[in-house]
């Protein structure tokens, strides 16, 4: 019989087959690039320098990538804080006072699936972190104005607006709880480190302070300790056992260099914070004294008795202009808390400044800025090697890492 149709059918069938094969291979290669989905996904946040200023990006991966590129990530904005709980990323946008809930689709694209507007409820600038208790219970803290917003992460609906005592030092200086993280204990107590960036050094803070929120009673209290001054970004977790420490802050170290006050408590110490939010009365180490340093800039990690400390050497000439202070030369040392000795390490010579960005599969991860070669990396804290560069970040620094399931 006449064979026109079968000839055309064959041609179209071949084209369709090729299309199908192409799409199948594309999907498979996309999946293979990210690994096995059963293990959950790795979320990576970066802060990249763009023509519009530094911007936050978020990407999802099934395996730890060797390189993350903002072109393959979702642009979040310029004032964001990234969190995750369960299988969803949550991103606070400080410029619009919106909390957005994201999901990762089969093509590994991170997409907004829901959002909550806080603009008419609280002031965006008083935001101080989220804390997740369950899939139905989470809190957003605005303690500078004495408010805690309870919401349901599943429905992204507000369930309660709580009025609580505001931060005790909130009205005298630029004080707030940390924007990027909070700690939830086993009994659902939420610990929020309180930090400060004092512009007016006459109001130098004279106590260390932590906000302690009891999610069962929905009440807050403030735990203080006069052995140290108020820090900023000031919790560090012991990698070995999860113990929480109150660590020094470079902002307050700078303030101390220019402050007219002379009887302020040490800024370069280390306090231990118990699970109930109280400071351990039997633990305090003045790292500045142990290192005989000019100032302690930061505690990067605590691993049992070993504490990795970034410090400024004694004898450094304080610049007249406080704006030049952050460009100070620093050194890195491992302090032995048992022996009260230290050993300098040359890590900073190559990577610049290192800071913690999150935990992945039981390992602490760090990121850097100010490397001599201008590169940015994520680093895995390893038993055998202090830092192992795992992932190069294109265009800027890493800011967040976590696994969602």
């Amino acid at each position: 019989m006449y064979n026109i149709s079968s000839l055309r059918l064959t041609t179209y069938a071949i084209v369709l087959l090729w299309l199908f094969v192409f799409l199948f291979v594309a999907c498979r290669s996309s999946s293979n690039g990210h690994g096995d989905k059963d293990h959950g996904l790795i979320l990576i946040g970066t802060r990249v320098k763009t023509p519009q200023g530094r911007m936050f990006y978020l990407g999802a991966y099934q395996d730890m990538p060797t390189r993350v590129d903002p072109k393959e990530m979702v642009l979040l904005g310029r004032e964001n804080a990234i969190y995750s709980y369960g299988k969803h990323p949550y991103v606070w946008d400080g410029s619009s006072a919106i909390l957005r809930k994201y999901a990762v689709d089969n093509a590994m694209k991170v997409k907004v699936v829901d959002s909550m507007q806080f603009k008419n409820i609280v002031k965006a600038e008083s935001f101080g972190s989220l804390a997740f208790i369950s899939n139905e219970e989470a809190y957003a803290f605005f303690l500078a104005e004495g408010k805690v917003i309870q919401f349901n992460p599943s429905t992204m609906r507000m369930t309660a607006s709580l009025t609580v005592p505001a931060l005790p030092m909130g009205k005298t200086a630029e004080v707030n709880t940390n924007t990027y993280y909070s700690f939830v204990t086993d009994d659902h107590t939420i610990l929020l480190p309180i930090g400060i960036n004092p512009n007016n050094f006459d109001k130098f803070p004279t106590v260390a302070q932590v906000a302690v929120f009891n999610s069962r009673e929905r009440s807050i209290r403030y735990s203080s300790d006069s052995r140290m001054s108020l820090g900023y970004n000031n919790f560090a977790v012991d990698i070995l056992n999860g113990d929480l420490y109150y660590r020094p802050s470079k902002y307050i170290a700078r303030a101390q260099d220019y402050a007219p006050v002379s009887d302020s408590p040490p800024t370069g110490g280390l306090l231990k914070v118990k699970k109930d939010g109280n400071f351990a009365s039997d633990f305090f180490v003045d790292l500045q004294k142990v290192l005989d340093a000019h100032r302690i800039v930061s505690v990067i990690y605590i691993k049992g008795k070993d504490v990795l400390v970034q410090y400024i050497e004694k004898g450094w000439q304080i610049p007249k202009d406080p704006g030049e202070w952050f460009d100070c030369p620093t050194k890195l040392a491992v302090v032995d808390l048992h022996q009260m000795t230290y050993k300098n390490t040359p890590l900073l010579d190559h990577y610049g400044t290192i800071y913690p960005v999150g935990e992945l599969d039981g390992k602490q991860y760090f990121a850097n800025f100010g490397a001599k070669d201008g590169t940015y990396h994520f680093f895995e804290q390893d038993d055998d090697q202090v830092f192992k560069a795992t992932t190069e970040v294109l265009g800027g620094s890493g800011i967040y890492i976590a696994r969602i399931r």
Partner: protein
Amino acid sequence: MVSYNCYILEINPEILKRYNEHTANEAECKAVEDWLNDYSEDLNVLSSNELHSMKHSVWRQIQQKTNGANVVQFTKPRKKNYALPLTAALAIFLLITVAYQRWTGSYPNDSDAIVITSAQGDIEILEDHCKLQFSGYLQVFNRSSKIKSIECTNGEKYTLAPGETYYLETIDGKHSIVPESHLSPDDNYSRFIRGDVKIYPEKAKNNV
């Protein structure tokens, strides 16, 4: 009856009827198909109106069958199909456009301004130099590709590198400026932005 020496068999209504009814033998089928594929439109062959209409009838039957099998309709006479290359060209164009937008779209557009952020929002300054009076803690971003500068009312001047962000602060009544590149990304210093600013250049665009 029509005879045409290119065909072994004569094409007549009976053969065509058998072809349509699938009862024609192999030789008759070949003769009909060769005849259908002949586009010479030789008038000698098509002298009979009856035969002409029969040829259309055969084509109609073929089309009905092929359409019934959900395949693309075979049209006669064959015309050059411009739709396919046009569609392909459009698809390539769209792909290139999307790829370009993906490549460049991940970064917002550039413009030639200094952007000062205070508690009141953003102010864009188009001039290369401006004088300002401020309180609190401000963010200053040189969004342009050239060096710009600002001068505080107390006489302190600061140079702004292209594409760099700074924080202006007042400590004990004295202004200072901190480049964002000196600050650790894990310190969310933009949260401390507060206070107000007054700009003295002529070309200031308030985005509040």
